[in-house]
């Protein structure tokens, strides 16, 4: 009667012939774990970068919208579309979507030019996303 051998033991009955199987298994598990960690870091980095790009693009649109309104001399109409704005001594502040848009108005050229510095900052980091300078002729001071 022959003794039944364990699948992990070799023909000679010793336990080392199963080593290639375990080496392969451990190597695969290690490889997959390492790669999974790498993918996760890559995907997390990509997602973070993509969100930053989206925030930057949204900031550009917001700033350009305010700049065009100022340029067209219709800043009041623009602000009426944003009911949550605050009037400050030097201009206006609008907050929303994690960003703050501040408009600082100054008169230049002896009142002939109304200049607006439009700054969009990220509320979370406080980072300046975009800063535009727009201006409109006021009609005064050109005599």
């Amino acid at each position, binding site marked *: 009667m022959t003794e039944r051998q364990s699948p992990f033991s*070799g*023909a*000679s009955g010793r336990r080392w*012939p199963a080593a*290639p199987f375990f*080496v*392969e298994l451990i190597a*695969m598990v290690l*490889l*997959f774990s390492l*790669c999974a960690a*790498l*993918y996760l870091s*890559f*995907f997390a*980095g*990509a*997602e*973070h*970068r*993509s969100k*930053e*790009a*989206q925030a*930057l*693009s949204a*900031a*550009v649109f917001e*700033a*350009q919208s305010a*700049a065009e309104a100022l*340029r067209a001399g219709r800043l009041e109409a623009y602000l009426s579309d944003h009911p949550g704005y605050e009037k400050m001594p030097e201009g206006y502040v609008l907050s929303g979507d994690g960003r703050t848009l501040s408009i600082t108005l100054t008169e*230049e*050229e002896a009142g*002939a*030019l109304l*200049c607006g510095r439009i700054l969009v900052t990220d509320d979370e980091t406080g980072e300046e*996303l*975009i*800063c*535009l*300078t*727009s*201006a*409109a*002729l006021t*009609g005064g001071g*050109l*005599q």
Partner: protein
Amino acid sequence: MITPEKRLRQPPVVGTASLLTILTVLCLSCFAVLARLSAEQEYRLAEKTVRAAESAYEADTSALRELIAHVRAGEQSVSFSYLCGENASIEVEAEIFCSPSGAGTLRILRWQRCAQAGYELLDDSIHIWNGN
């Protein structure tokens, strides 16, 4: 018949599961790298848009200041070109109409951003109208 000695000399067998794992790892590596590169390019494009918008509005404001300077110099008809970056300019034409009562009206006839120099297309295989 395979003797135990011959079996010991055989190279380690790579099973189907291992091959599938390796292929999966390779595919996911490609996707991860592509996703990261795509996000980086998207961010760089957004940064370029920010710089372009900032310089465009800055040039616009400077052109307005120059227009005011021309008007204050007493010119009835103003026409000038304001350089905006390396390859663009803002073409401005304005006139001052004086009413009999003496009040003047500044009318801007042209405020146009134009390409300064003729641009060269790097890819000649695409036939694009160059505006001429």
